């Protein structure tokens, strides 16, 4: 840079460093504390940041291992943390697969075909994505009660209902995938069609393999979206064994039963893998979107 550095510049750099270091400390503080709390004995904030005494009781709790109670008997944890995590992962995997399946073909039609109502449908999808499902909770509750009257599998307190509810939210995925398809030259499929491929074969054998990177990204996004969803899961699921992690984690911190240490261990145990997936997807999304680009 051609700008002359003077004395005030040095002070300003120093001030900026102090400010940023303080802010970073504030940002990291909750994470460090959570680790510390999970290693402290007891559920009270009696320790220092670096615990004087390390105890794995909370980790045993989170992993579902028994602890030895005061009277020498084995005490099993009363909250099934691992089961909640497993529920979350199952629901997220299945609904992400269905969502991806539904959006790839729809995006193909939007990207390559001409049909009446295309523009309106695209605008409609855009609008849908702007209304959060939390606004329709009452209706979702009522709809699944009704479906449950006919098919108990898809009724209240069933993970399948949750899968169904999550699979419908494909609006954003369609837009993202459509943007990527449009970056692939249509001539490639046209060549395949000239060679005698049906539109379906051109799509399935030619276009889809080339779109794999964006499909991975959309899958991860749908997966994460389902893992962290709270409102719909909280009204559809009731019994403890059926909860997802987002709903279950809420039951640690009640004034009557304040399981701070247990929560901390469970949060790290389940948050870490999710966070890693989350960060990977963020990276992939930025890469995928910059190469794909969501064009209107």
């Amino acid at each position, binding site marked *: 840079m051609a700008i002359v550095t003077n004395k005030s510049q040095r002070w300003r750099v120093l001030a900026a460093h102090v400010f940023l270091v303080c802010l970073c400390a504030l940002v990291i503080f909750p994470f460090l504390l959570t680790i510390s709390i999970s290693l402290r004995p007891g559920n009270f904030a009696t320790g220092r940041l670096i615990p004087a005494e390390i105890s794995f009781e909370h980790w045993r709790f989170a992993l579902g291992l028994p602890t030895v109670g005061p009277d020498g008997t084995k005490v099993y944890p009363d909250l099934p943390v691992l089961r909640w995590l497993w529920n979350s992962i199952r629901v997220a995997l299945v609904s992400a697969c269905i969502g991806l399946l539904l959006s790839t073909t*729809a995006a193909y039609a939007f990207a390559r075909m001409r049909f009446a109502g295309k523009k309106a449908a695209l605008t409609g999808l855009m609008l849908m994505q702007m209304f*959060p499902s939390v606004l*329709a909770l009452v209706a979702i509750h009522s709809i699944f009660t009704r479906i449950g009257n006919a098919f108990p599998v898809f009724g209240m307190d069933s993970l399948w209902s949750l899968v169904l509810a999550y699979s419908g939210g494909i609006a954003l995925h369609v837009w993202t995938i459509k943007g990527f398809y449009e970056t692939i030259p249509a001539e490639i499929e046209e060549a395949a069609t000239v060679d005698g491929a049906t539109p379906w074969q051109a799509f399935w054998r030619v276009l889809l393999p080339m779109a794999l990177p964006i499909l991975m990204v959309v899958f991860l996004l749908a997966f994460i979206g389902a893992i*962290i969803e709270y409102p719909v899961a909280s009204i559809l699921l009731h019994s403890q064994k059926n909860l997802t992690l987002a709903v279950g984690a809420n039951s640690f911190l009640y004034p009557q039963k304040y399981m701070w240490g247990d929560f901390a261990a469970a949060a790290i145990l389940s948050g870490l893998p999710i966070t890693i997936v989350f960060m990977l997807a963020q990276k992939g999304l930025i890469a995928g979107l910059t190469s794909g680009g969501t064009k209107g």
Partner: protein
Amino acid sequence: MTIPPAIRRNLGRAFLALLVVAALFLVTVIYATGEVLLAGTFLVIIALAAWLYLSQKTYAYRYLFPGIAAAIIFVVFPVIYTIFISFSNYSSRNLLEFPRATQYLLDQTYPGESNTFGFSLFPDGGKFRARLEDSEGGAVFFTPAFAMPGEAPVAVTAVPEAAAGFTPGDPVELGDIIANEENLKKLAITMPNGARLGMTGLSEFAALKRLYTPRPDGSLLNNQDGTVIKPNVRTGFYETPSGEKVLPGFQVKIGLDNYVRIFTDPKYREPFTRIFIWTVVFAGLSVLFSFSLGLVLAVLLNWEALRFRSVYRLLLFLPYAVPGFISILVFKGLFNNNMGEINLILDAVFGIRPPWFSDPFLAKVMLLIVNTWLGFPYMMVVSMGLIKAIPMDLYEASAVAGAGPLTNFFKITLPLIKRPMLPLLISSFAFNFNNFVLVMLLTGGRPDFLDTTIQAGTTDILISYVYRNAFVDSGQQFGLGAAISTVIFLLVAGITLVQIRYTKIADDEKR
């Protein structure tokens, strides 16, 4: 694999026909359970699917159908259904539809005046037999063995002692009968003479009579006291001549009543207005704080004289990478009045322990602190991208002119990123307007207002207020909740329209 195309085409059709038949069977099953609306919806979808996949003209729609149908069923339909519910009195008191509420009343029974039977229960294998002794004649009857009724009522026919061929052992203890009282009440015993008995006391069964007899004009005659109750389609209840409501009520259309209640009934209007104002303030301040912090950081991190920028950037991005429900709950613990680390530190340094969760003002401050913490990384990343796009020579020119960093920020940076930033800020506002997860997990809307008759919290935003009315607090006012949801729909739609306009303006600028 080579299959002749003719067979292949027909194979597809046969498969489709099979699917349609299976689907039609499902519709019949749904219809049989009484869910007429659901059956109708299914039928329409099947018909549409069959037409789309058979007609040659609708090729593109074959690809669209599964996705669009799912989106319409699970996104659009709930929205429409919400509006539909908002015009009804659907609530925990008016949960059932009219035919079901009527059936519920017709199933009610009361003990008649005929003689009672002493009741005792005997184990028989893994099952049970009931012994009934006529309190007047002394005749004894036994039922066949039955499993304890659980979800469904059990109907058995009793036989005289001589015909039962059962030697009773020790009867079941009274304590166990008390423990199973709810289940035993579902037990219906038919006597050899055809009378139906039901439980009327812990050791007593008596003939039960139907409480209501339907009459041709749709009213019900109460057999016990001779009154006639009539369904009132305005209030959604069967009512006695004196106007007393008989529970359970049924769902009826009540027009705009829910909306009228929100906007004019002081009981509802008072909290609604306050919550609305707080929602706007909360969303506005959240956007303001996280944007200001994010922008300042973006400017700093673009400053080339500063070292370790990538380290700072990585650390500051962390709050965005961790799933919200985990970090919000971590903060819920950290802010805890007595055991939270934040008060521990404040106590050690300043000797204060602010009651974050019980003081309305502090609770709001806490919500904003946490939301800023959660929201600034996004603003930072977006602003950094936009600042990168500003030509460097503008700053060089201003440096030559002797301008300081503040002048640079307000005269160059801010005006240039304002336009592209505006739609993002508006959508962030719309997001925070419905930031249900934050409010629900951190404060749950509490502390509650002390001066309102219905439960509403000082930190409730509109959507958490709906949630509490519809799902948490007693009453389960689905209709009212749906009406408030509809009002929020309209508000968010308005915000969205504004956003689309600004996006268009931004697009036009680019061209």
